[in-house]
């Protein structure tokens, strides 16, 4: 039901919005939503922080870019390769990384993200170095190129819808409960029979694959990528989206992604203040509403409602 409404909204948006600039903006929101959604599974649900997810975003984008530009592959051939490669890399990274906790995990993932960025810049023969890769072909279905903004909009939001369904199903299942159990108390989760290390690795891979998919869509949309789109600040932006939207809130990812995409558009001076705003948002939300904005507000609402109900139940 929820998803029918959601699909309906996407359809209406795609039909009504004709301005190509607005369509592009909406498409960007979709891509960022995918990023936030994936990271939220790891951070919001399982409680494992990652400050290096931009590297997976970049890995997805660069894999498809290199394969299509240098080797002339069809994008649809490079998609599974990009996802699979990211899955493998993230698996190898996660195995030792997720033995770390708290601060160490933060530093470890931060270091990993930096290595990714340095490789994108430094491995110039393949990645084009600082100047990046140009001429990434747009996606096409059969002989029809998805050059129209509307078509791409639908493609991206189709992926987002699938992403939502996947995450919602996981969250409502035995696995989702296990993730939240790990978040609340890793020790108790283990004592309840939850194989914490394995599930943490799995959810890390899942979130990396989401990022890679977003990277793939991003690369074929803008047709040009450079390392600066995958630096530390991008990882921080992803974390900010999750924090704004709410840890452990699937729909909050959509809100977080929308806000952080639209804010710079609305406030043109915002560019200069971008970092300050992210920093402040992260600090303020974490200090006062550690569950995130949506979740925190919802909790506050629930609490006041139940207080109201109690007052009326026992006068």
């Amino acid at each position, binding site marked *: 039901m929820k998803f029918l409404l959601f699909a309906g909204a996407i359809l209406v948006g795609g039909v009504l919005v004709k301005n190509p600039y607005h369509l592009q903006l909406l498409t960007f929101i979709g891509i960022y939503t995918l990023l936030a959604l994936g990271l939220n599974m790891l951070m919001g649900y399982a409680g494992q922080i990652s400050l290096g997810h931009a590297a997976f975003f970049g890995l997805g984008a660069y894999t498809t870019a290199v394969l299509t530009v240098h080797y002339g592959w069809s994008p649809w051939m490079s998609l599974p390769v990009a996802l699979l490669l990211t899955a493998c890399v993230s698996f190898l990274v996660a195995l030792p990384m997720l033995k770390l906790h708290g601060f160490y995990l933060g530093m470890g993932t931060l270091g990993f993200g930096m290595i990714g960025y340095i490789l994108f810049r430094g491995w110039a023969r393949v990645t084009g170095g600082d100047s990046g890769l140009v001429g990434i072909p747009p996606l096409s279905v059969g002989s029809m190129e998805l050059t129209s903004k509307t078509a791409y909009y639908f493609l991206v939001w189709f992926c987002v819808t699938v992403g939502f369904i996947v995450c919602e199903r996981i969250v409502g*299942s*035995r696995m989702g*409960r296990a993730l*939240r159990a790990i978040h609340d108390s890793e020790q*108790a989760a283990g*004592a*309840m*029979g*939850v194989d914490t290390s394995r599930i943490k690795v799995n959810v890390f891979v899942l979130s990396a694959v989401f990022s890679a998919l977003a990277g793939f869509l991003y690369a074929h949309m803008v047709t040009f990528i450079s390392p600066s789109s995958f630096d530390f600040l991008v990882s921080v932006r992803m974390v900010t989206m999750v924090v704004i939207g709410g840890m452990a809130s699937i729909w909050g990812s959509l809100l977080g992604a929308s806000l952080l995409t639209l804010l710079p558009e609305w406030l043109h001076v915002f560019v200069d203040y971008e970092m300050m705003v992210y920093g402040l948002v992260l600090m303020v939300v974490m200090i006062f509403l550690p569950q995130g904005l949506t979740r925190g507000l919802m909790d506050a609402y629930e609490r006041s409602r139940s207080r109201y109900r109690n007052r009326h139940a026992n006068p």
Partner: protein
Amino acid sequence: MSDLDHDTGIAMPILEVRGVSKSFGGLQALFDISFEVLPATIHAVIGPNGAGKTTLFNAVTGVYVPDAGEIVYDGEAIQGRKPHAIAAKGIMRTFQNVELFGSMSVLENVLVGRHSRMRCGFWGAIGRLPWVRREEREARDRAMELLQFVGLEQVAGQPSTDLPFGWQRFLEIARAMGAEPRLMLLDEPASGLNPVETQRLGDLLLKIRDRGITLLLVEHDMSLTMGISDRILVLHQGRRLAEGTPREVQSNEAVIAAYLGKER
């Protein structure tokens, strides 16, 4: 019962601890501890603070690996296994300081307890096939039954952290029972409970034993321990001081000396 030895007709122990030692740095927390727990009994471990009770629990549940000795559960050595693997074999526990999953509802807590009895993985969850839905439905029914059993069915949907402390203890027991364990380890289940709740806890533990579940408990409340336990193991400074029925332990001179203190 299946736990009976075919030749002799004597019950086989469900848990055997053989010569387990564990030290942290220079501190010897457990020294050559051996004892047996018979199925469907309540076996208490008592002793002054620092006697090594919680260390013993952590060794049995796989949190610590003993430096020496064997822990045999149901005829199989389990020392050194990971906690989740031990839990999956049917050994569940509660914690001294109540470790509930705070972001989850009461019912969901019990459902996590059922984790090792369910099979649905990531792919199963994404596919949501009929068997997954059936499994989920059954798990919920079973969890509700358990909440009824401990008397918390009214608050199944509430956040677990909103419960009064005493109820949280009962919830932890229900959660541990979610996995249909054969052996449950309860770490000071009565601490923080008022006398009425303690009384209820005692009745509940007896009911759990009557379901055929073996209980190993650490407890400071002597009237509760003496009242419900079938056997009692007394630890003192990491060593085994005495073992026997409540009556035997109560009249044991070494125990009295350790508890009342000869010197002080």
